[in-house]
């Protein structure tokens, strides 16, 4: 086990909500990141996925110390950088750099490409043996641009080329780690592939470590070694890539994966049948749900709750009041297990029919019952009838 390059423990960022002009009172906080643990090993790519508003971008800014954490610890390369000052952080920025999402707003329109890509040398006051211009031109070549682009301005470039400029700037000081925040989501599909391939090549060539933040599950699968799924400020699942995509354990991961449209019309019906449609919206991070953050939208929890309610009213018809649904939690799962095998639910929309899992989030039960992705080269989604309890 090698030393982790980046280690994050109990990281929190709460943005205060204030009211009043002269006397600013804090009336609450947006709990954007609410206690996450992460570890990234040298040379690996960790993908961080989640829906908008789940705190993934905030996480990226916290680990690069663009913002100050509320609580927790960030250790980069053996040094605690949780609360170091901007001045003390500066030398460390040679080691950890960032690629931004929007190639239009992240490049100064009044600076030439040479000035933009050369800025890290200037800021860090680094002398390059062959001169700064030569170094910048080499970087431009490295990311697939031509050295003649040195004196041009960002507006003369297309989106994909601008993203390459941003990558060249991030790589100028040969960092150990690059945090890429949605590096391809603003680009066209064909350009996306170019940039993804470029990131791949650079990692091999320079031995980079990536933390890639993205919402596109298929892109993350392509570039990551390990994947962490975030929901409402917390990480709900971390696993090696193949494990996560072939055997997702958290109901949220499963719902997320099943929601990705399948680019194959022949599998349209199968995909729709297997799709888990989450109801409603992500709750507000100002006042997140107690317990499991996902419980308000969790199809597993709802399934259990609904079934339990029906089951209880049925078994005790004379008490038929809503109070019965508050009966001890344990009774229902026991009954569930002993229930004779009914036809299994095939459709995600018919969630209400039965309860299968012994407990809502028992990983073993989930692992037994769900296999989302077809086996390699398979024709379709596996028939799930074979794992009847």
């Amino acid at each position, binding site marked *: 086990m090698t030393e982790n390059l980046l280690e994050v423990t109990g990281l929190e960022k709460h943005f205060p909500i204030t009211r009043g002009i002269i006397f600013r009172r804090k009336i609450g906080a947006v709990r954007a990141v609410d206690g996450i643990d992460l570890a990234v090993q040298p040379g690996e790519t960790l993908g961080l996925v989640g829906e908008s508003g789940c705190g993934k971008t905030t996480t990226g800014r916290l680990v690069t110390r663009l913002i100050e954490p509320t609580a927790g610890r960030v250790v980069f390369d053996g040094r605690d950088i949780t609360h170091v000052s901007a001045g003390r952080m500066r030398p460390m920025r040679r080691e950890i750099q960032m690629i931004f999402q929007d190639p239009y707003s992240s490049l100064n329109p009044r600076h030439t490409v040479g000035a933009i890509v050369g800025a890290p040398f200037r800021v860090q006051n680094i002398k390059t043996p062959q001169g700064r211009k030569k170094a910048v031109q080499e970087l431009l070549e490295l990311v697939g641009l031509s050295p003649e682009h040195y004196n041009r301005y960002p507006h003369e470039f297309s989106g994909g080329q601008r993203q390459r400029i941003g990558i060249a700037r991030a790589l100028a000081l040969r960092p150990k780690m690059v945090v890429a925040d949605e590096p391809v989501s603003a680009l066209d599909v064909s350009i996306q592939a170019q940039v993804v391939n470029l990131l791949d090549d650079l990692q091999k060539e320079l031995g980079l470590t990536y933390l890639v933040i993205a919402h596109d599950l298929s892109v993350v699968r392509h570039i990551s070694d390990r994947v962490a799924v975030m929901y409402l400020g917390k990480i709900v699942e971390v696993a090696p890539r193949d494990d996560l995509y072939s055997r997702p354990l958290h109901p949220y991961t499963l719902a997320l994966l099943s929601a990705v449209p399948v680019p194959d019309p022949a599998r349209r019906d199968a995909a729709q049948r297997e799709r888990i449609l989450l109801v409603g*919206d992500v709750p507000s991070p100002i006042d997140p749900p107690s317990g499991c953050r996902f419980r308000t939208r969790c199809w597993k929890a709802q399934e259990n709750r609904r079934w339990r309610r029906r089951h209880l009213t049925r078994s005790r018809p004379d008490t038929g009041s809503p109070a019965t649904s508050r009966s001890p939690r344990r009774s229902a799962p026991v009954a569930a297990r002993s229930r004779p095998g009914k036809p299994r639910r095939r459709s995600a929309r018919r969630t209400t029919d039965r309860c299968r899992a012994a407990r809502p989030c028992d990983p073993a039960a989930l692992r037994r019952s769900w296999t989302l992705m077809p086996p390699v080269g398979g024709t379709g989604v596996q028939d799930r009838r074979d794992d009847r309890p």
Partner: protein
Amino acid sequence: MSNFLEVNDLRIHFATDDGLVKAVDGLTFGLERGHTLGIVGESGSGKSVTSLGILGLHRGGSARVRGEVWLDGEELISAPREEVRRLRGRKMAMIFQDPLAAMHPFYSVGRQIMEAYRVHHRVSKPAARRHAIDMLGRVGIPQPNRRIDDYPHQFSGGMRQRAMIAMALVNNPELLIADEPTTALDVTVQAQILDLIRNLQAEFGSAVIIITHDLGVVAELAENLLVMYGGKCVEYGSADQVFRRPEHPYTWGLLGSMPRLDRDVRERLISIKGSPPSLINLPSGCAFHPRCPYAGREGIPSLTEVPQLEGDGHLVACHLPVATRSRIFAEDVAPHL
């Protein structure tokens, strides 16, 4: 004119200071009631301009619109403005990509939906309000009688898109154009919205045009597929044909450059070299030739000729002879898709 919607040689050009932008240049397609057509292409390929052109929203200004658009036996390009306005919103409606930009921030969602209804129906305000509440409920907005008085900024992204769909559907349009309806949304919300569009189409029997750059979305919804490049159609066919046996090298590139969850992880993505062309200075001949890995192969006519759409049902505009194309697809492309 058998189809419900028939677009014939549609050309939409814009005169700009830099030159003539040929955003759409000779587009022809048809669509029947109850069917869905997907239009795919990269940004700047003319997808959105086409949809606005069908709705007649390019009138005046610098746009030059030529060609014919037949909607249920009526020609729209040469029809008077008032005529088109009468149809727009009632017979044909549009879902825009960004509902925050498409809705007026000063008016409540309900008021905007009611306005869309009352423009075409002579009903009292309370009746329109009831109808609007009903529509909001049908697109899956909880507590529609309370949310109707909310303003667009009080809705979440997915809810706003639903409200937008409610507004488009309030008059039961027979043609619905959805321009990147889910691009700004998260996957879980996207799945909800696609499901909604599918169900509403089944309910209302409308013809739907879905415009997107996401081939996954198209595969979910569309029966027919039109691939656009540089303002022209380069491939047209049933979704099955285009996904199973794509003919145009651009389509190969699009399919190859997309990482897929239903396949093994590939070492590298097949990317298309270069970037989309400027519509002012389109490359001569086939607009795709500077990016096409097979341009300049044996037996190809000079690059000054524009390839015509050819084929039986499955149309493709490519200079490569059919036999060569089949061979390249089988040898070079299919193993990597």
